[in-house]
């Protein structure tokens, strides 16, 4: 990893980590023990042959190395940047016990960036088949499923409601963490496999359900786009955003460049971000880059934050103030936000998620002045389309009920990614999408 200095990078949206050069990649690869039973592969949700591609890097054969990754993962430039490697591949690396684990994420990213500069090779496609498949949503799950099915010869159309494909990779994750040029390159690769992407198409509306059901198979990859609000007093005031809205305005519609771009956003002098996940970090760091003084309020302890370690670390480096064990009780103002009242929290016994549950300490309330408040407390699946398809079963949190292959309760409809799991990571969505694509493939070829 080679991070640009924090005091420099908070003034722009360029990538924080500028990647590693070839010599460094080869040296890092040489540290790999090439375990006979590689635990790292078990830790990878898409099962990449990690020792295999690392050996090729060591030999300087980058072309073969990226080929190995792409057998399992069509979006390596994205995953190398946004996977929580510390709890996946790198978390399992045996070297990590005494020393630092192999920087698998950095190596993956290095190869993907190398390939983008040196010409992308498109994998061989299976013979063209007549079956048509509809994929709803063009985020990581949709792109992965579409790529897998296209490689198997199917005719695949992705429907995207936004004007640009990429889902959360486009509207959610900021440029400084995942450059849009990288996302666009990986999307073009999916298109080169023959996948058609129709933007501005809201399935259920622009494409009625009857027409959707005329496809031979359907993969729902609509993500978890419905933002949760805390439900505390004052949150409908001017200056209060869901992280989804704040990030969409900046990442997708370039509100940071207002008025050159027409979409406005309240940049804020004092911004309070509520939450402790990656989305909260993204929102806080975007606000910081637009010139605000930013405080992040999280109800549990620093070590309980669900964000990737490196994101929380980067956020702190960039001067985001963390107020842990603190929870908002109301948002103040008379129509326009002036502050947030918070209460200190006491950590109690562990809850279902293994994290301590937090209880407010009576009388510990105090006020943080703020002119913008961003709530990043989670998202659930958007129920719009799900409600229109008869027979789909939703679970408690609105997630679609699926079996281990991603099959829903309606014949020939599969689901993958956050719509089935609830808000999770890019790589878990991709893993589930591969599984669902394989199941669709079997269903259509074994009939």
């Amino acid at each position, binding site marked *: 990893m080679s991070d640009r200095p924090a005091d420099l990078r908070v003034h722009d949206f360029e990538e924080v980590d500028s990647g590693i050069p070839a010599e460094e990649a080869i040296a890092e690869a040489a540290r790999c023990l090439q375990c006979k039973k590689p635990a790292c592969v078990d830790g990878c949700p898409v099962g990449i042959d990690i020792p295999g591609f690392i050996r090729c890097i060591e030999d300087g054969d980058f072309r073969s190395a990226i080929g190995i990754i792409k057998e399992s993962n069509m979006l390596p430039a994205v995953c190398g940047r946004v996977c929580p490697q510390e709890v996946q591949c790198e978390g399992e690396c045996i070297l990590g016990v005494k020393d630092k684990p192999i920087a698998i994420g950095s190596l993956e990213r290095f190869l993907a960036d190398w390939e983008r500069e040196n010409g992308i090779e498109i994998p061989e496609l299976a013979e063209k088949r007549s079956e048509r498949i509809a994929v709803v949503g063009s985020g990581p799950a949709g792109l992965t499923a579409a790529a897998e099915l296209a490689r198997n010869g199917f005719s695949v159309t992705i429907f995207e409601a936004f*004007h640009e494909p990429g889902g959360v990779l486009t509207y959610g994750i900021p440029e400084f963490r995942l450059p849009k040029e990288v996302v666009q390159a990986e999307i073009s690769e999916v298109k080169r496999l023959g996948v058609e992407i129709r933007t501005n198409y809201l399935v259920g509306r*622009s494409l009625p359900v009857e027409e959707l059901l005329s496809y031979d198979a359907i993969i729902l990859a609509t993500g978890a786009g419905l933002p949760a609000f805390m439900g505390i007093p004052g949150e409908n005031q001017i200056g209060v955003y869901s992280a989804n809205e704040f990030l969409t305005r900046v990442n997708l519609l370039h509100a940071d460049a207002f008025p050159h771009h027409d979409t406005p956003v309240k940049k804020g002098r004092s911004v309070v971000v509520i939450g402790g996940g990656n989305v909260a970090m993204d929102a806080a760091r975007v606000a910081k880059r637009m010139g605000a003084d930013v405080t992040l309020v999280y109800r549990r302890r620093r070590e309980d934050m669900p964000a990737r370690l490196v994101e929380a670390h980067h956020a702190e480096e960039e001067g985001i103030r963390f107020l842990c064990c603190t929870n908002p009780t109301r948002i103040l103002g008379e129509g326009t936000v002036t502050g947030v009242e918070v209460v200190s929290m006491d950590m109690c016994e562990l809850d279902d998620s293994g994290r301590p549950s937090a209880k407010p300490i009576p009388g510990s309330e105090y006020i943080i002045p703020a002119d913008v408040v961003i709530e990043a407390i989670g998202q659930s699946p958007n129920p*719009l389309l799900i409600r229109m398809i008869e027979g789909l079963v939703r679970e408690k949190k609105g997630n679609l009920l699926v079996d281990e292959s991603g099959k829903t309760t309606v014949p020939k409809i599969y689901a993958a990614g956050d719509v089935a799991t609830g808000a999770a990571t890019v790589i878990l969505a991709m893993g589930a999408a591969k599984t669902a694509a394989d199941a669709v493939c079997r269903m259509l070829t074994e009939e």
Partner: protein
Amino acid sequence: MYTITAASALAENVYEAWISAPHVSRHAEAGQFLVLRIDETGERIPLTISGVDGDLVRIIFMTVGTTTRKLAALKKGDTILDVVGPLGQPTEVKRYGTCVLVGGGVGIACLPIIAKALKTAGNTVIGIIGARNKDLLILEDEMQSVCDELIITTDDGSYGIKGFAAGPLKEICETRPPDAVWVIGPAIMMKVTSGVTKPFGIRTFVSLNPIMVDGTGMCGSCRVVVGGETRFACVDGPEFDAHEVNFDLLMSRQRFYTDEEKESAAHHTGGCGCGGHH
């Protein structure tokens, strides 16, 4: 890219455009809207679908900000980069009996498509359309052709009955109470006018027009409070029970970007946007 096939001015600052967007037009129902983005640097704005003809959809808009001003400058043959729709829940069309449709200003644009649908469902449709003055009144002929009865009001009395649309609506409620009422126009007009039907207990709908981004339920920009509950106008609405809507909150949230709108206007027109008050 979506091509404009016809564009014209209907009144001062009010424009009409027909856009070729089959994926929207073929599935649009009364009461729904679309979201458009004119060009690469454009913002996404919602506009009611005010008519459909084959592959074409009609929008009618008033120039209030940067996007509507840009839109007004487009001519036949020009293109719009993005159009998504139809969005929102359609009007609850069924056989009510007698329906009154009240439109104020550019809000009249929403009415013909709803009037047609209600008429087809077997209702008697009375239209009340109001404007500040005669020159600002739009769609009179079209409303005349789809309504069983049409009442016109102008604030200054330059045409039709002098006063607000609330006047004749109240009279109708008193003399021959209708079974359902729609009130569509500026938020303040909807608040005041729909208040008229409340004492009579007549089911009344309003179509809310908060600020939106995606229009598909993923940002929460358009949140409104109806019956004490926060709802998203883009997917739960845009039509809601008028007597449950918190209009003051709607009006407050519509002013979210007042300062930015001035800044944007100044940027696009070259001036500072202050009207010479520096």
